[in-house]
């Protein structure tokens, strides 16, 4: 019943503010986009203006292996981008899905059950989030290699991403699960659902906004993570962020290509965000309980 709000006549100041904010937020990205269509000589020029000859050269470089022709400015095509893209997609999606499922199960346990070691579990989880990846790198590499035999595999990377993101997901979802009216769970239990079905059939659908927000973030981390991916992946499982830094050598920051690759690289997470953020909707529990 709560759907038709009275539309406030929106203040014009709201739109002005909104436009300012959009400019602030998107400005750097627009600049990036613009630069991705420039030659380096234009990018680093202190005098170049808004007007420049757009060129697709940078994109040609980034995507050379997919092009039916050989771009003439390019002397050699790095053939790993496509493979890295596939790896990145698989690793990010799988690890996001796993993290969410495992994470919200754990969060649910912590929120809804009283059991021995509950606070300890919850606190430890948070602590684990605090360790910087830089110091984990060497132990993780050693353990993955020598003890798990997972080095160079996608599963190895997925494992570490899931572990790294779990504390975040567990903590953030806790606060969303708390808000699900407990009466719904009670109703489901009366209807004969065991704890798992209560969770998957009733709780999970209702924390969609929280899940979506967590998913956006988890996906983003998995998609952009660099340090561990570099250490744990081999040629075949390497992800895009690792390949992109190849364009940054000490002597030569290939601005155009980096911006182009950066833009291309941002497309999957943007699409992901776009669809995930549609799940952030209001009124999930409208009409559920009276009170």
């Amino acid at each position, binding site marked *: 019943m709560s759907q038709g709000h009275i539309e406030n006549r929106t203040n014009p100041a709201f739109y002005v503010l909104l436009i300012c904010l959009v400019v602030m937020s998107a400005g750097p990205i627009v600049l990036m986009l613009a630069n991705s269509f420039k030659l380096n000589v234009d990018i680093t020029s202190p005098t170049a203006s808004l007007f420049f000859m757009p060129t697709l050269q940078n994109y040609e470089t980034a995507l050379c292996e997919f092009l039916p022709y050989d771009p003439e400015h390019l002397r*050699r095509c790095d053939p790993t981008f496509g493979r890295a893209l596939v790896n990145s997609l698989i690793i990010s999606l799988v690890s996001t899905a796993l993290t969410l499922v495992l994470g919200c199960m754990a969060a649910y346990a912590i929120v809804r059950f009283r059991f021995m070691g509950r606070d300890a579990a919850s606190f430890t989880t948070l602590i684990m989030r605090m360790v910087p990846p830089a110091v984990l790198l060497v132990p993780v590499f050693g353990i993955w290699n020598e003890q798990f035999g997972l080095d160079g595999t996608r599963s190895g990377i997925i494992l570490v991403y899931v572990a790294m993101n779990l504390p975040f997901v567990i903590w953030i979802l806790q606060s969303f699960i708390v808000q699900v009216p407990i009466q719904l769970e009670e109703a489901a239990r009366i209807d004969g659902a065991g704890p798992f079905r209560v969770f998957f059939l009733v709780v999970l659908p209702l924390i969609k906004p929280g899940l979506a927000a967590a998913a956006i973030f988890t996906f983003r981390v998995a998609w952009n993570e660099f340090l561990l991916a570099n250490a744990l992946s081999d040629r075949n499982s390497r992800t895009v962020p*690792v390949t992109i830094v190849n364009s940054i*050598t000490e*002597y030569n*920051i290939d601005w155009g290509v980096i911006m182009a690759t950066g833009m291309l690289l941002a497309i999957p997470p943007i699409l992901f965000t776009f669809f995930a953020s549609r799940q952030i909707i209001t009124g999930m529990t409208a009409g559920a309980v009276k009170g």
Partner: protein
Amino acid sequence: QMPAAVYEPYQDVTLVVNFPAHPHYDAAMRVLPLFTEETGIEVEVDQLQYLRMRERQTLELTQDEGDYDLIAYVVFSKADYVFADQLHNLARFFMDPSLADPNYNPDDLIDGYVQNIGVAGGTKGYLPGPTGSLFGIPFGSETSVLGYRTDIFEEHGLEVPETYEELLELACLIPELEPGMGGLASRAASGHQASHAYLLHLNPLGGGIFDDNWEPIVNNAQGVEAAEALKSIVDCGIEGSTTFGPSEAAAAFAQGQYGMFLDSIAFAAGFEDPSRSTIAGNVGWAMHPMGVERASQTGGFGLAIPRNAPNAEAAFLLMQWLTSPRIDLMIAMEGGNPSRFSTYQDAALNERFPYSATFGEALRFADPDWRPIIPTWGEINADLGTTLSQVLTEGVDIQEALDGVAERARGIMDEAGYYAWQ
């Protein structure tokens, strides 16, 4: 031509090599298919950004069985890898008649490079000497040279500087002659970049980081002079140049904002590329100017064979092939950095890259000891770099700053055990 019989035993091998993302290696990779063609050995290249490559190698080399047969390493990795006994001593291969090419002509390799990059175990541990031996072969190495704007120099009738006095004078004269233009483009950003720029001047001006007993001497008169030189160069640069890394410095020069540029030869090609540079055709090259001595920086990459390489012999064959005179030239023609004097003298190459002869000449003065290649260097370097950054941006007193660096460096060295024998 090497008889194919040498390669026969390795027909089924696929070599995995680890290369940095670097113009020289890009050039090498364009030539690489020829190797497979000639020898039947497959090669897979794993290319990474050079710092990442180093990180990965560090981890990889501790394994029992490694992934890589042949690695390219950054010069300062030499100390770590050799110390941890992770590289093959190349003597083992050069002694093996079934592997070593009699026409390899090692004398032709640029000594400065070999000493700096390839040899370990001699003087001070990281330099050549009676106790030293060879662990790697330079491949994609660089040295410092002076680039200048021929058009500007011509217009104002300027002489190409031969000595540091001339250099420093010009560095501050150009901004006066050409308002808005900086003198000498230099790195200056906090940390490694500032330190690097400082070291560029330290040796030519007669200074050094340590004396022969590992006592820090950065704070002696020469050290201070080098810092003053750096400061005056940066001060006579364009606004904001204190944040420049090499790419910004190069970009500023390429945009015509500087009259001179003193850094690695690796930048030369970029200045001639109109998609990156507005000054193509107007760049002249000269040797690194002389202070009390001529000493150009050396650095870059070398090739080595890890101890845990699955196919060490075949890897050696590839290494030898890549650094042979014929292929060295071929790679140079593709835009790589030669490792051999003969290559620099090659007429065809000079025709293609007119500055090659100058570079070859500069390399005769390549200094392998412009900074220590020891495990504690990373920390000292970072400290030196941040302290110099404070000198450049906050006007901290130079002597005081360098005294501090020396003191802390001594502490670091002490802890690492360098004074145990005293």
